[in-house]
């Protein structure tokens, strides 16, 4: 379906607008990552963008040439400064680091519930950003990492998204995924049948951290450069808003929310520059895209509080309402 969508897009929009849709695929992949942990466990995490940030910064720094790094970021630890990796290697490294970081964070934090969990993961995001921004031995400081090879095209972005969806799907159909979903529906009953909440949440958290690290690397290879502000508050809230607008409790909801909002977002921001759609020329007033987007999200939430997907899930035999966990 996504392939058809991509095909359809290319016929409707001009070349320059198409380029912008990479962004939508990558952001949607992030939504799917957060879904793997938050959607299945029912515990909202504000911290996943820190795994995206780790992945993006690791991939960005290691794909820069050594002499270039020496010139721009002289403070870096020697093993970061002197090494250079190919594209695929940076993706793998980012996934590994994201997973490792999520594991460490998760060991401490997945025992928390509800708001405490939300604020604690938010604190992780704050620390990650603060360290990346100010500790020049591991990060670029207040500067951005320039000149990362832009290898994420439309195909690569779509492949990354599909990969994330497939992994998320396999996980939620697996025994571990079902156990975690059981804890979401009724924590006490789940414990009663011998499910260890801590362990199941940690598995999901680590898996989604690794996925987020990977997506972060894909993201930096799409952006070409990255600064700490690009992977901080705005992205966190945007990704969470997409997840909730789509519907937190199904993979279909996460995908739908991510794709629809980021497409609209792209269209609107392109619209500010003047957009030709179906051979008509539209121009929106400057910086009105944020206003329209926020208003749309509010309307969706008011009319469909359970999200666009409203509990529907996709399966191998088409769409259906989720009736079992």
């Amino acid at each position: 379906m996504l392939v058809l969508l991509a095909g359809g897009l290319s016929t409707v929009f001009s070349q320059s607008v198409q380029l912008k849709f990479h962004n939508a695929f990558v952001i949607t992949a992030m939504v799917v990552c957060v879904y793997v942990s938050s959607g299945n466990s029912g515990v909202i995490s504000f911290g996943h963008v820190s795994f995206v940030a780790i992945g993006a910064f690791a991939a960005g720094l290691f794909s820069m040439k050594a002499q270039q790094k020496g010139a721009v970021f002289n403070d870096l630890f020697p093993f970061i400064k002197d090494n250079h990796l190919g594209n695929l290697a940076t993706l793998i490294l980012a996934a590994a680091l994201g997973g490792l970081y999520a594991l460490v964070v998760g060991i401490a934090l997945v025992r928390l519930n509800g708001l405490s969990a939300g604020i604690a993961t938010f604190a992780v995001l704050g620390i990650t950003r603060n360290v990346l921004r100010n500790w020049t031995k591991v990060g670029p400081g207040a500067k951005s990492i320039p000149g990362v090879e832009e290898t994420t095209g439309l195909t690569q972005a779509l492949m990354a998204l599909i990969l994330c969806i497939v992994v998320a799907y396999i996980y939620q159909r697996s025994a571990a995924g079902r156990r975690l979903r059981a804890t979401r529906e009724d924590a006490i009953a789940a414990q009663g049948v011998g499910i260890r909440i801590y362990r199941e949440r940690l598995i999901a958290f680590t898996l989604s951290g690794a996925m987020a690290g990977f997506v972060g690397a894909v993201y930096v290879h799409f952006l070409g450069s990255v600064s700490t502000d690009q992977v901080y508050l705005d992205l966190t809230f945007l990704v969470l808003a997409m997840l909730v607008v789509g519907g937190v409790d199904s993979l279909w909801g996460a995908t739908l929310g991510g794709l629809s909002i980021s497409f609209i977002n792209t269209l609107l921001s392109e619209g500010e520059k003047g957009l030709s759609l179906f051979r008509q020329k539209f121009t929106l007033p400057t910086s009105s895209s944020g206003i329209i987007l926020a208003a749309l999200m509010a309307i969706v939430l008011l009319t469909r509080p359970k999200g666009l997907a409203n509990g529907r899930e996709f399966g191998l035999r088409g769409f259906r309402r989720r009736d079992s966990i």
Partner: protein
Amino acid sequence: MRYVQYFIDAVALGSLYSLVALGIGLIFGVMRLINLAQGELLMVGGYTLFATNGWSVFVRVPLVLLVIVGLALLMERAFRRLRSAAPATMLVMTFAVSFLLRSIAQKRWSAQGKSMNIFSGLSHAFTVGQLRIRYVTLVSIAVGGVLLLGVNLFLNRTDIGLQMRAVASDRRIAQALGVRTNRVVVTAFALSGVLATAALLLFVPQRPTVTPDFGLQIAIVALIGVVVGGMDRLAPATFGGFSIGFANSMVFSLLPTGQRVFLDSVLYGLVIIVLLLRPQGLFQRERQTTRV
């Protein structure tokens, strides 16, 4: 003596955040809603100050109060339909409202800071021995204390206050007993608007310019404080707000100058430690066993 100075500054910042935290706590109490857009009350008030620069203080203060309380009541209307929705849905809704207001501010006034310029006399200081005390410090502590006491009296001595506490402890039962929930919720929002106005006016000497993100930064810190203190009751939530402001100022003063950039890391680290040790809240009594 140096530490006394740090302590005074920290108490002043703490009382500012406790006002914002109390506003967040009031709304959470009556409708289980974490209002991320609370900071936008301060932001919009800030732009009102900017737009009325040069007018008499006696016009500006009531006007700001009117604008902020009006906006708070509008927000209440927007959130009303979601009262029984999932917490995440409500949270994202408040985020959408916050994003909407910030986008409008961005469009109207750009991201550049605008001077709010009110009560400029407050940032002057006088010295007692080696202590350097700004007038705003004293005023913050005094106004903070008076308002906290006032809200406390309101909740304990008036009918609507009693109803508010009833709704906070169990909305359905309160409703069944004839409490008009809408009226209670509207009052809570109006009250949080008043608190936001006070907080805004006292923040001006510290942060004299308003940007579209002005309120969000304050609200996030206050919200963290509320959760760290304990959301379920007002007093712990308010103390939580106080503590985060206090800790913010104290850690900043105690860190060596070169390490001050890591203020956020230290602060967030403390938050994580507190949450792990007391997930129910720092000032919350141990909760009885979870209901099955």
